[in-house]
């Protein structure tokens, strides 16, 4: 498996570890976005996505 080289930092990551790190960051951002979209009480988001939450059947709204 090819190794990832962080030339600037002088570190080398295996491709698998690199994938895990990228996926971890990606999932964290997705989780935060979903949380804000579906569970936050921020009025602008809450009102805009009100019907979306109801449409998804498993997302609590009221």
């Amino acid at each position, binding site marked *: 498996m090819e190794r990832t080289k962080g030339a600037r930092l002088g570190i080398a990551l295996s491709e698998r570890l690199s*994938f895990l790190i*990228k996926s971890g960051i990606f999932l964290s951002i997705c989780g935060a976005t979903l949380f804000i979209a579906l569970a936050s009480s921020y009025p602008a*988001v809450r009102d805009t996505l009100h019907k979306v939450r109801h449409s998804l059947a498993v997302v609590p709204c009221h």
Partner: protein
Amino acid sequence: MLLGSPLRAEEINIYFKTSPKVEFLRPYADPAILSLLVTAADGRALERGSVKIRLDAPKSGGFFSTDFPFVEGTRLTELRLPLRQGRANWKYLFPIRGEYNLFVEVESADGKKAGKDFQIKINENGYKWFLLGGFCLGLFLFGFVAGRVFTAIGRKASLVVLITVLALVRNEVSVLEAQEPAKVVGTVRLEIDPATVGKPTRVRWSMDDGGLGAKSMIALTLTITHLEESKVIFAVERVPVAGEFAMTFQFVDGSEHSVVAVAELRGQAPVRTEHRVSVTAVEPPATAAIPAIALFLFVIALGLGTGRWSKLRLAKR
């Protein structure tokens, strides 16, 4: 559909049905007409008497929440209706999916009592499951593409910098009117206690003694309407009342509702009373959404793994 309940067959039989049939009812779609038929042992309708009705919401389904988690397992309505030719009818809009429990207690004119529980299973709207499936498919494809992008084959991989500006979450508690004042129109009063989602609210209509007279002849029509959705969520029509009608009712949505009472008396013009109710919303805790978010993240992760697998498989060929 007729849910029969031969209850102590030698005395009183109670039958319950909905229109449309239970299998066609969906949460927060259209109100159903709920009907009770009470007969004596000989099969003839019980001419005089009353029924006490108690409707409880489905209990929490476990891992996933419904749209209205505060409503789950709570009392929705409790009222007493007089029997007319052995029948009692009312309209109700079921708010969530699941199995409701309807307890009916009949009291005949000669003091005989009988009670029975009915289970009403309301299925979720099919289009909601369809939309949920579509949403999950979209998330899966999103994860699939990301999985392929993140998998480096034959070239130097680099960490992808993902920057997202996230809005700040601000908690805001909606505090609406604390008290709904009694509205008096002439001699008629329509009183509604402060309404909060998740708690039954007392609704009382009454007519003073010195009012329009002939109290026993009053036919009362009471309608509760969700104003934003323009949906009737509860109604009883032309119920004979002796100057007073009271019930407890849970408003499940934190928005404005209208309660309209129309009293009809023989030889008199109908007396209409309307009351606007601002229901205090109770937002579920953010943690209530965690099971759903966990499901969505799982689907994305599945897409990530599948995307990586597909790219590696292609590279090995």
